[in-house]
C-alpha cells in the first residue's frame, strides 16, 4: 500500500485543481437515454457564464446538436439533474451563482424523446 514516497509529507499533486484551468472551470453535461453521444461531454467554461449561454451557444456547438432528436427538444420541458439530484436552472444567472462549480455534472432528461428508433441511443 504505502511506499516511502507516499509516507513523506509532500502534499499530493492534484492535477485538475481549478487553478490549472486559467480562470475557467470544467462543466460536464450528459443527455440521458441518448447513447449515440458515447459519453457525457466536458466543457471548459467561465464561472461567470450565464446558464442560458450553455443552452444557446455551447450545446449547439457540441455533439448533442448532431443527434437527430436535438431539434425536437422542448427546452421548457427539459428536466435537469445535478449528478443525481433534481436541479432547477436559472437562465439568466451565472453558473457560479447557482452552485455549478468546477467539475459539476449536469444531466438533461427529455422524457418525450427516446433516442434513435426509441432504442435509447
Amino acid at each position, binding site marked *: 500500500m504505502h511506499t516511502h514516497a507516499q509516507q513523506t509529507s509532500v502534499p499530493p499533486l492534484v*492535477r485538475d485543481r481549478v487553478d490549472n484551468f486559467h480562470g475557467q472551470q470544467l462543466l*460536464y453535461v450528459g443527455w440521458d437515454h441518448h447513447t*449515440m453521444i458515447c*459519453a457525457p461531454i466536458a466543457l471548459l467554461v467561465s464561472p461567470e457564464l450565464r446558464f442560458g449561454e450553455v443552452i444557446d451557444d455551447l450545446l449547439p456547438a457540441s455533439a448533442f446538436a448532431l443527434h437527430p432528436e436535438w431539434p425536437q427538444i422542448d427546452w421548457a420541458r427539459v428536466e435537469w439533474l445535478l449528478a443525481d439530484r433534481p436541479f432547477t436552472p436559472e437562465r439568466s444567472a451565472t453558473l457560479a451563482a447557482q452552485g455549478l462549480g*468546477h467539475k459539476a455534472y449536469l444531466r438533461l432528461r427529455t422524457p418525450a424523446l427516446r433516442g434513435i428508433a426509441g*432504442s435509447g441511443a
Partner: protein
Amino acid sequence: MNTQDTRRPTGKKLSLKEKYALMTRGLGWDTSYEPMDKAFDQLGLEGIKIHDWDKWEDPFRLTMDAYWKYQAEKERKLYAVLDAFQQNNGHLNISDARYVNTLKLFFTGITPAEYNAHRLFAMLGRQFPGPGAAIACQMQAVDELRHVQTQIHSISQYNKYFNGLHDHTVMNDRLWYLSVPKSFFEDAISSGPFEQIIAISFALEYLLTNLVFMPFMSGAAYNGDMATVTFGFSSQSDEARHMTLGLECIKFVLEQDPGNAAIIQRYLDKWFWRGYKVLGLVSMMLDYMLPKKVMSWKEAWEIYFVQNGGSLFNDLSRYGLRMPKYWEQSVAEAEHLSHQTWNAFYNFSGAAAFHVWLPSDEDMAWLAEKYPNTFDQHYRPRIEHYRKLQAEGKRYYNPSLPMLCQTCQTPLIFTEMDDPTRTSHRQLEHDGDTYHFCSDGCRDIFAGQPDKYVSAWLPAHQILQGNCVEPGAEAAGDPGADALRYFHVVAGQDNLDYEGSPDEANWLRWKGLDKTPPAAAA
C-alpha cells in the same frame, strides 16, 4: 537464510536439483554492512509478513545458463520465420487490411505495457530478499524485454506497408485511449512490491492473460497473420512460466502468515477491476475488428474468466480468498461491453491511430446471434442510423471531449446495470474537489488511495488545460488539430474510417481489387 552448505561436491556430476540450488539459492547472501531490513526497505510497508523466504519454490528449477540456451533457440526460430515472411510478402496473406488495425491497437497499447512489465520485474528482483523470488523476477524482466523486441521486429514488417504503426512509444505516452493501459501499468509500478507482483503476476498473468493472449494470437491465426502467430508462440512458453510464478507467489504469501489474506484480497479486488477495464479494448477487437471472428467477448469471458477463474478461486478458498469484488457485474456487462466500447471509437475515430468501419450485414447477423439479449434491441438501431448518415455523406463524428473516469481513465461510456441507456456514473468529494467514476469498482479504488489518483493525467483535462501541444511546435489555435499533432497521429492517414483511407487504397491496388476504373487506353 542461506545457511545450508552449497559448495560443490567434488568429483560428481551435479544433479538438476543441486545445480539449481547452486545457481539460484547459492547466489544469495545476507548483507553485513547494512541491516537486511534497510537493504530491502520496501518490504515491511504493506503489512505483508514473510517468515521464511526459503519456502519459495520455483517449480521450473530453471537456472540462468539453461534459460539463455532455451531463449536463444526460440529467437533463432522466430527470426527465421520473420525472414521468410519478409521475402514472401507475408503481409499480403492476411484476410483483409482491416485486420491490421488490431495490430495497431496491440502495438500501441500492449507492446509498451510489455516494456513497463520489464521495468517492473527488474525493480522487483531487487526488492525481494529471497533468491528464489529474486531470480524468478529477473528472468521475467528479461523475458518481457524480449517480448518487446520480438513485437517491434515482427510488427515492423507491417509498418512498411500500413499506417499508424510509426510511433508506438510516443502514442502510448500521449494518445487519449492509451492512457487506459498506460495508467494501469503506472499504477502497478508505483505500488509496493507485493502489490506489484499480485497485480501483474497473479491478476494479469494468471487470471486475465488468456483474455489478451487468446484474442490476439487466435485472431492472428484466423486472419492469416503468420508474423504475429510466430511471436505469440515464441512468448507462449515464457507466459506459462509467468503464470506459474503468479500462482506460486500468491500461495507462498498466503501460507506465510494468516494475516496476509485480507491484504491480498484487497489487491485482488483492485487489480481485477483495473484489468477488466483495460480489457474493454480487447472486447471491441474481438467483436468488431477481426474480419474473421474467433469467438465473442461474451464467450471468451465465460470460458476464461467465469469457468477458469471460478475453479481457481475454488482452490484458493482454503486460504480465505473469495472471487474479486464486482465479478458478477463483469458477467452481466459482457452483454454490452464491446458494443459500448466500439461506439466510443466510432464517435472519436478522428482522434485515433487506427481505422474504424461499420459492421457489414454479415457482421451484424453474427453479433445478433452472439448477443441475442442485447444487440438487436440496443445496438443495431444506432448502427443503422450511422449507415444511413454515411450513405448520405453525413458521417457522424463527435466534436466534443468526453468526461473521463478518474481511476481507469475510460470515458464514461458504460451504462447502469438496470438501464443500458443511461450512463453509469459515480462521484465523491475529496479534499474540496469532486471526482467522477465509471463504476462502483473504480470509485472504491479511488477511495482506498485518494492521494494516488488525484494526480491522474486525464487526457481530456490536459487538452483543456492547454498542455497537449507538441513541444517546440507553434500552437495551431485549434485544440483538436494541436492534440492530434501532439499524439503523433497523422491526420487523414492514420485516423478516420477505413473506407477512403490510404491503407484501403493500397490494399486494393496490391490485391488487384482497385475500384477506380483504369485510365482509357490510348
